[in-house]
């Protein structure tokens, strides 16, 4: 009886307003703008840490004239002033008092910083700083271009390959894209892991540990059971990974529901325990016999996820499984009563309790699903890509997943897209490191900024003058430590 409060009754169902294109844009504009802002900040970092740029900077400033100094200072002041004019409340109030229409006021305040910026760049260029500006733009272009080239392929090569019609050549030219998809698969699982938990108001920082446990279980099933047909062996190994991940999430879940201890600190601790455990097993019990490096044995061929494209490509079925599961999770969260209850608990645990939801069960369920997703991410890596377990099975997929899930608004479909984005970033960054000498870690910095911009939407809203909050909801996960 109590549960009926939550379900829309047959007669009184309110027909939701049909989504227009503008509504879709409103719900995704914040993540997109946040991501762009983070990329911009990343570009600033890349330029500022570039040695050639630094040398040029030094050279220009060693032969600088007084007028140039004055112009430089003026233009910087101009930028600051125009930004202040655009952002400050004082100007807004002043314009309103003067009876300026709202539309004009907004556009004035939007265009002031842009105009200020253009004028000062123009001034700087004229006064002999053009070398520096060109160098900065050039560095940014080279870095991000090589990032895209490494993750999406070179368009000239692809065209040439299609013209020649040689299958081998085509696959080779498309290999960067396939590698991006390979990198996106664990991100989808990891993102789902964080997203499902966050939807229930749980912050699962333990995804990284769950990935390791999942990889461990599926590698053990993968190499120790012999003589099974792939149709049984692959699902078995995947299931083992999912179960191990779920088990690793079950520990903080039961501690949270039974004893009320906070999951954040517990999952952090369990991460370290998982690393130590895997390290221990790799140096002892499951170490490959013939080698000195701590690797596990290779899994049986029957447990390997089948690859779908010819040789150089490593694109395997894991990506499709991940997308399928994401859609399944979407259906579960948004189309089933249990999913609705999970989201309600996440929104307001107290109200859900009064509505008769057993919130402990929901925490448990969300945690188990979350852990299973983490485990699947690990299983996917082991069964699809490396085929053995090593200590570096995950280059931080679990931690990246946090920013990924938040960027995707904790929505399974959003997670698919952000996972593709992160796959592109992760895969292209290696190429960027080789070509532009920009370390891979730049994407970690960008990710952290993405979190900040999403979690503090005010920053982006002020910068880009967005009205209202769009469809994103404020994330609240901190609900005390010990109790």
């Amino acid at each position, binding site marked *: 009886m109590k549960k009926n409060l939550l379900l829309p009754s047959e007669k009184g169902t309110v027909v939701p307003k049909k989504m227009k294109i503008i509504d879709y844009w409103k719900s995704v504009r914040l993540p997109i703008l946040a991501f762009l802002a983070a990329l911009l900040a990343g570009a600033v970092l890349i330029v500022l*840490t570039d040695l050639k740029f630094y040398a040029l900077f030094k050279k220009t400033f060693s032969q600088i004239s007084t007028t140039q100094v004055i112009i430089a200072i003026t233009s910087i002041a101009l930028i600051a002033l125009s930004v202040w004019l655009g952002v400050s409340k004082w100007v807004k109030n002043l314009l309103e008092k003067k009876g300026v229409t709202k539309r004009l006021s907004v556009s004035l305040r939007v265009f002031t910083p842009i105009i200020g910026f253009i004028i000062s760049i123009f001034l700087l260029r004229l006064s002999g700083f053009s070398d520096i500006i060109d160098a900065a733009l050039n560095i940014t272009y080279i870095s991000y271009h090589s990032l895209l080239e490494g993750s999406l392929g070179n368009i000239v090569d692809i065209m040439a390959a299609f013209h020649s019609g040689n299958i081998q050549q085509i696959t080779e030219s498309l290999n960067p894209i396939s590698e991006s998809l390979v990198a996106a698969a664990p991100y989808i699982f990891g993102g789902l892991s964080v997203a499902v938990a966050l939807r229930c108001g749980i912050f699962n920082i333990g995804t990284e540990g769950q990935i390791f446990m999942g990889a461990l279980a599926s590698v053990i099933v993968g190499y120790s059971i012999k003589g099974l047909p792939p149709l049984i062996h692959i699902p078995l190994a995947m299931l083992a990974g999912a179960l191990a991940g779920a088990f690793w999430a079950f520990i903080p879940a039961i501690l949270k529901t039974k004893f009320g201890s906070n999951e954040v600190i517990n999952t952090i601790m369990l991460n370290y325990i998982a690393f*130590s455990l895997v390290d221990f097993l790799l140096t002892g019990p499951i170490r490959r016999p013939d080698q000195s490096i701590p690797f596990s044995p290779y899994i049986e061929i029957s447990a390997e996820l089948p690859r779908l494209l010819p040789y150089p490509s490593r694109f395997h079925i894991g990506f499709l499984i991940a997308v399928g599961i994401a859609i399944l999770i979407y259906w579960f969260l948004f189309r089933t009563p249990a999913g609705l209850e999970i989201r309600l608990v996440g929104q307001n645990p107290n109200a859900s309790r009064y509505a008769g939801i057993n919130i402990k069960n929901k925490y448990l369920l969300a945690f188990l699903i979350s852990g299973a997703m983490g485990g699947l991410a690990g299983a996917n890596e082991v069964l699809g890509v490396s085929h053995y377990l090593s200590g570096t099975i995950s280059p931080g997929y679990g931690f990246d997943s946090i920013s990924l899930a938040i960027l995707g608004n904790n929505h399974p479909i959003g997670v698919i897209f952000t996972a593709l984005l992160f796959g592109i970033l992760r895969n292209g960054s290696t190429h960027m490191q080789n070509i532009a*000498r920009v370390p891979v*870690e730049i994407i970690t910095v960008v*990710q952290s900024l993405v979190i900040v911009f999403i979690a503090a939407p005010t920053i982006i809203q002020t910068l880009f003058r967005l009205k209202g909050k769009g469809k994103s909801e404020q994330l609240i996960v*901190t609900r005390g*430590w010990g109790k």
Partner: protein
Amino acid sequence: MIKNNNNKHTPQELILIAERSRFRRIGIIIILIGICTALLFAFGTDRNQKSTFVLNSPESFSTKIADLVVPSLYVILAISFINILLGTYQLTKGFGRNTNKILGLAIFLFVFSLLVWATKDKSLNLTGMLRLSVVQAIPLIFGALSGIMSERSGVVNIAIEGLMLIAAMVSVIVSSATQNIHLGLLAALLASGLIALVHAILTIRFKVDQIISGMAINIFATGITSYVGIKFLIAFPEFNQTALYPNIAVPALSSLPVIGPIFFNQNMFFYLAILLLVVIQVALFYTPWGLRTRMVGEHPRAADTLGINVYKKRYVSVVLSGLLAGLGGAYLTLGAVGRFNRLMTAGRGFIGLAAMIFGNWNPFGALGASLIFGFSSSLESKLSILQVPIPSQILAMAPYIATIVILVGVIGKVTAPAADGQPYEGQD
């Protein structure tokens, strides 16, 4: 939530019942520890084997004393017997308020028997090991103090790890570039203070969830330090070598046997940590400033009503917390290693946080917890030297498991500040 079937008991009785079952559980745990001691260590130990503990520190000039030599088997059996006795007493009569101390004693005896077992027919420098524990505890003390400072004012700070990492890198770069370690320390404090200010602005002004903000800072710190490390420190190794703060021997006290080398011949950072510990303890619990800070962490609305500026208090606390974390980070490079390695904090910030919880948000409790965690990590390295068949990774898990256990509340209950983690909305 009070369960319906317990309605016939008053709340006081309920607490008593819970206490009693907790005491019983602990009694069983102590007996199990005693039995484990006998089962694990007594078998395979010969009657004539002896364990030698060297008590003179090789690097110090303290007065020399004789080595401690004990017969392995008898000590192990005696410890096992004592523990079983303690557990039985706890089950039948109970130690009452001293229960946790007795549990601590039981665990201590267990660890001692482990050492006796590990050193049979060998020798172990006990003083050196304890000294190493204190050394390992220093960054944890700073981390825990940082957590206490921030959380007592109601702001959860899980960014300690990231703050330490950034401070470690900045200190090493500045100190090698300027050839002045004091400047390096100062720069580290500045950097970590600034990043802590960002955390404060995000959580207090923008009301970002405190854990998400903390995690963002951790990820940022991981990224930026690795970025700079790969981009510059590999290409210019001259920016990655710094002088160290020397060890300072306290006159007279440092020549005491055993205690001298452990506590009175340490790095400047150790004395600083102890000093700050006392200062923070006094400031938090015996001054109006501390009372107000704690009030902001317990009940910000009440504090606001009394005219305390909640936001300002929290800003100050978080920045102070950042400075403390910065000291911990600077210790790693300027006090211990002398260079920056990628991800060199290796979870020490989180263990510091665990020490804070373990110590029940009290500076002295956190000191004890830090020393315990430090001991477990020095045990890890010493046992691998003694070639004990216990994998070092299992011991490496110990602090994390201990934290989880303490959070569960089987052994004791910890209470966080009531408003910990909740952003404060002003009334105006």
